[in-house]
């Protein structure tokens, strides 16, 4: 039984107090991470009002309800401003689901194990990079599971994007214009392979690539006019260095080198998504600066029950906007505690962005909301990820021995020009490529110059 001994505003006061005093450990009633380490159940760390939407809204919104223009004002402070506008003014609806108390459902299993196993071993070196106690690159899992600073929180995002050693995302993407019409549709494959900070068997580093953090490629498989267009990012472990970026155009059979700091441009025509936006940490961490925690508190995040494994190709129903196709159907839950972190693109003299604000769920240190501001300080774009454990009824996707956890969909909304990029992690895209995790042999297939040229043939 959970004793309701705290009044409604207890948590609000607690968060304000913690922020004011600079106490950044997670948990309101008791520290969160000891609970996770013991039983992975967070219930005792938070009062009722932070563990259920009914508690938070005093019963005005219940689990299973739809957030609509009529009731979204009740939870305005739980949404990023663009998500609120989408619901309030653009016909978006969001289903509320129960808050996840078992955090094993919010991680790939091996990543959580590594996080717990390596807890306390990470530190920043003189250059600002995360290293182990003996100065080596990170060894896997979140380096700072109970992050106390904005830099620590961001390091958790930066060092492993997909939280598997490697991931192959078969992505189906739709670009929706301000008129609600679809302007482009792409199929592409996003492959990422961590070369450091790996988890599970095989050790934390890929041999000979200890100075790198990851290799990552994107190649387009549809429509025909972009088929074979591909990019390869080689990330240095040193987060002060820009990744090497090359592109390949099959029509010309030539590799094109891009300026390394050109990260505020889309990959192909029509996308609102920049390289800089990937995982809210699309740029090397130390090319941004002035990291600071600007708040903490509950938030509505799409962190569970968002896998549509029973739908063909895992695609999602859409609704809202002028043509009723701007938004994916989405489930959100009350995240009891998020860190709100801001950073500025200090390493980019031409950045059109003045800062980003990221909401990070303290349960898994994954971002659940992210917006950028233009240089005038006006809100520009939002990047809203949706995650899930990949199981639904009898259906299940494995990442090896365990049920996979991954992102399932993304809304990227440029609110100034009102263009929406939305994409899902599909089962399969044109060309026969499928989504999967921890696969063998990705580097030779997709992650070097020869590979991306071969993809276009």
């Amino acid at each position, binding site marked *: 039984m959970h004793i309701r001994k705290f009044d409604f505003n207890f948590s609000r006061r607690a968060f304000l107090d913690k922020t004011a005093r600079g106490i950044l450990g997670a948990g309101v009633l008791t520290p969160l991470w000891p609970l996770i380490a013991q039983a992975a159940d967070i219930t005792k760390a938070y009062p009722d009002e932070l563990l259920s939407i009914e508690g938070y809204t005093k019963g005005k919104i219940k689990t299973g309800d739809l957030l609509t223009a009529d009731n979204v004002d009740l939870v305005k402070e739980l949404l990023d401003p663009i998500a609120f506008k989408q619901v309030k003014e653009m016909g978006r609806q969001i289903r509320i689901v129960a808050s996840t108390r078992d955090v094993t459902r919010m991680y790939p299993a091996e990543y959580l194990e590594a996080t717990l196993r390596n807890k306390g071993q990470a530190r920043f070196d003189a250059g600002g990079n995360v290293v182990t106690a003996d100065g080596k690159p990170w060894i896997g899992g979140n380096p700072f599971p109970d992050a106390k600073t904005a830099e620590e929180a961001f390091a958790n995002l930066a060092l492993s994007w997909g939280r598997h050693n490697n991931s192959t995302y078969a992505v189906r993407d739709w670009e929706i214009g301000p008129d609600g019409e679809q302007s482009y549709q792409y199929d592409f494959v996003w492959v990422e392979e961590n070369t450091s900070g790996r988890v599970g068997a095989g050790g934390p580093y890929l041999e000979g690539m200890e100075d790198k953090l990851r290799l990552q490629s994107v190649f387009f498989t549809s429509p025909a*006019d972009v088929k074979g267009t591909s990019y390869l990012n080689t990330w240095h472990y040193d987060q002060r260095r820009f990744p090497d970026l090359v592109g390949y155009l099959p029509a010309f059979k030539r*590799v094109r*080198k891009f300026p390394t700091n050109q990260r505020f441009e889309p990959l192909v*025509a*029509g996308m609102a998504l920049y390289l800089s936006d990937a995982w809210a940490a699309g740029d090397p961490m130390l090319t941004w600066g002035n990291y600071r925690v600007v708040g903490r508190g509950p938030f509505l995040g799409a962190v569970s029950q968002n896998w549509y494994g029973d739908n063909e190709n895992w695609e999602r129903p859409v609704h809202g906007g002028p043509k009723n196709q701007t938004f994916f159907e989405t489930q959100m839950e009350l995240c009891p505690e998020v860190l709100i972190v801001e950073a500025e693109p200090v390493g980019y003299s031409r950045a059109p962005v003045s800062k980003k604000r990221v909401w990070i769920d303290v349960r898994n240190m994954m971002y659940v909301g992210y917006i950028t501001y233009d*240089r005038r300080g006006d809100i520009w774009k939002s990047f809203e990820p949706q995650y899930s454990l990949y199981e639904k009824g009898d259906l299940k996707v494995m990442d090896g021995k365990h049920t996979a956890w991954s992102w399932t969909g993304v809304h990227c909304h440029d609110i100034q*020009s009102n263009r929406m990029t939305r994409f899902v992690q599909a089962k399969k895209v044109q060309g026969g490529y499928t989504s999967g995790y921890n696969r063998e042999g990705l580097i030779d297939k997709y992650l070097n110059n020869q590979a991306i040229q071969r993809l276009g043939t």
Partner: protein
Amino acid sequence: MEARQIRHRLARFALGHRALVLVALALITAFFAVGLQRIDVRTIFSDLFPRAHPFVQTFREHPNFGNPLTLTVEIKRKDGKDIYQRDTLRKIWDISREIDLAPGVDHDQILSIATEKARFTVVTADGIYSTPIMDDHPPETAAELEQIRRRVSDSPAARQFLVSNDGSAALVNATFIEHLVDYGELFAFVQTLVSAQQDELHEIHVAGWPMLTGWVYHFGGDTVKIFAVTLGLMFLMLALHMRNVAGIVTPAVVSIVSAIWGFGLVGWLGQPVEPLLMVVPLLLIARCFSHCVQATERYYELLHQSGDKHQAAEYSLVSLVWPGTLGILTDAVGLLLVALAPIPALERFALFTGLWALNLIVTSVLLTPILLSLLPQPNNLDHLLARGDDGGWLPRVMNRVLLRCGHLATRRARFTALVFAALAVLAVVEMSKVQVGNPVEGSNLLRYDSRFNTAVRDINAHFPGLMTLEVVFEGKQGRIVRQSDTLNTMQSLQHCLESGPTPPTATLSFADYAPEANRVFNGGNPKWAPLDNDDAAAAAAAGALMVGTSAKAYLHVTDFEQTNGTVSLWYPNNKQATVDAALVQARRCIDEVGPEHETFRIRLGTGAIALQQSINDTVDLYQWYILGALNLVILVGCSLAYRSIAAGLILLFPVNLANVFLTAAMSLGGLGLDVNSLPILAIGIGVGIDYGIYLLTRIWEEYQACDRDLRAAINMALTTCGKAIFFTASLMTLGIAPWYFLSELKFLSDMGLMLVAVMLINMVLALLLVPLLVFLFRPRFLEKDVSALSESVEGTPSGDSQRISMASL
């Protein structure tokens, strides 16, 4: 119930229940006063154009092609050096960064040699390296400066459009998002930016439609000055003329109430008011003033006869309801008919001013006698009502002038008619020469030496120009700029235009970018520039351009989806002759390449030149519709009122001739006929018809009173009613004339001049031509009983019958 009885009952009720009427009017005024807070004075760019015009439809469907919402900043060296100096490139860098902070800017559409969208491409052994012309910082060393010079030289687009041929100037272009931009805020931002960057070695010029609107907003502050001076002068004249409390306070209160109603209604309707047209309400205030003054003078006449304030006020209301209403209705209809021109800003203007004019029926006609009855009785009636040589020098002069008019209209009728005929012929000839459209380089809203027009001329002199005509390639199927036929047709069209008799200063299309991409991605040898003549080659080149770049970088040549494209044509200026020649050549070349293709059609067009032409076409056409409709309404209304078509025609002839004279005067003064002249046309006719109604009725009445002696009737009408016309026209003319000197906006100066011309022409025609026509044609309605129209007030307490003529107003 007869009309006369209704008038009496209304007057009796209003004056018998003054408190009730005043309370009701006060409540209504309070209601409208609340609406004042909601007045929205702003420009909505897309509402300035005629929605049904094919060019405007093309603009609405393809707003990014030749986007007029683009600000162009020119940074120019003054010391003869080129821009490849440390301080100049630093300024270009800073302005490019600062403009990104401007309100409403589209961050993806800022272009200069300092932005990363201006690139040069290098082919190396290990691939193609596409990089911004400027690195991540402005150049500091001589080597870096030289590098920028070389990179600009290697980038054809930058060389042609971003740096001048002589290297002395560079441009920064920034495009704005219409629903986000606040022109006033943007103007202040740009002014601060220019002040900070301008120095003894650099000139900074800023042009583009957002800047023009900003200047209009900026000089809009002059409107307050104009209001103050105009109203001040009118009150001064009124005070000098009236010299009593009632005669001064009444017009002031009535005008204020009318203004509150007029502005308040717009506030409640939530319709934005175009800042340029904010002076027109002043004219309505002046018209209210004029009606009120006329009513006051009539009250004095009655007061002088009866000595009873209450009775004089009541009878003055009886006398005014009909003529006042008819005059005001013609004013209102004239203004409302401006809405025939399908330009949203003008439609709102028509609604705003037309409804305001209608409120004068209540505020002026009804409120004036009530206020007069409450205010102290004037003790200078004898002086005010003096006729002939009894008064001071001014009445004596007026009387002689008016009698001279009568002499010309009657005793020298044939001579006067011949003079009018000759003048009319000359005016028609001159009228046919008037230019429709813009006669200047830049904007005719501002003076020639204004900073904006100076900027336009300077940019036009150093770069291909600010004004484009866009020939749109509208897709029927697929992403057409990835198709061979599209690119080939674009090139053919450009070749046709560039080799024509009046070639544009530059042309640009997606087809210009594609060969360069083809060359670069094939290894850099110029022999690879031409595309293979198939869709695969076109798609490959397009893909090469788009990869790793926002589609917004090419929004000036193809839309976001690449389903439509444009050929942009730059011209040295936007003078009408240039515009006409550009359109002729564009049409010829479109016919040559064929307007219809399998996957696209070619539409002419959009861009600043086409939009300017759309307004001109509309003005040219709809001025005749408005004139025709006004004639019809006036003819029907006046014919019914006078029960004579001849009366309607006699009233119409002078107002139409006034319009001919006005247009001829514009032609002589070098003014073009444009969208701003439409409201003047309506206002002019409203003024003219008022005068005509008053005078014609008085002539009719005096004709019967003078035993059908037409000469005597005309002279009597001119020295009574004509005097009132002379005074009110003078009052308004003197109030408006200072506009010419009071504003930096040439538009307001021109408008002031035109309005003065309208007032004077209408006054002269009313005082000369109306009596002349009556005398020459001696229409049969003069023989009919005038009592239905005349304002005889029967059954006064003294038992005498008073004949109050509406024409005496």
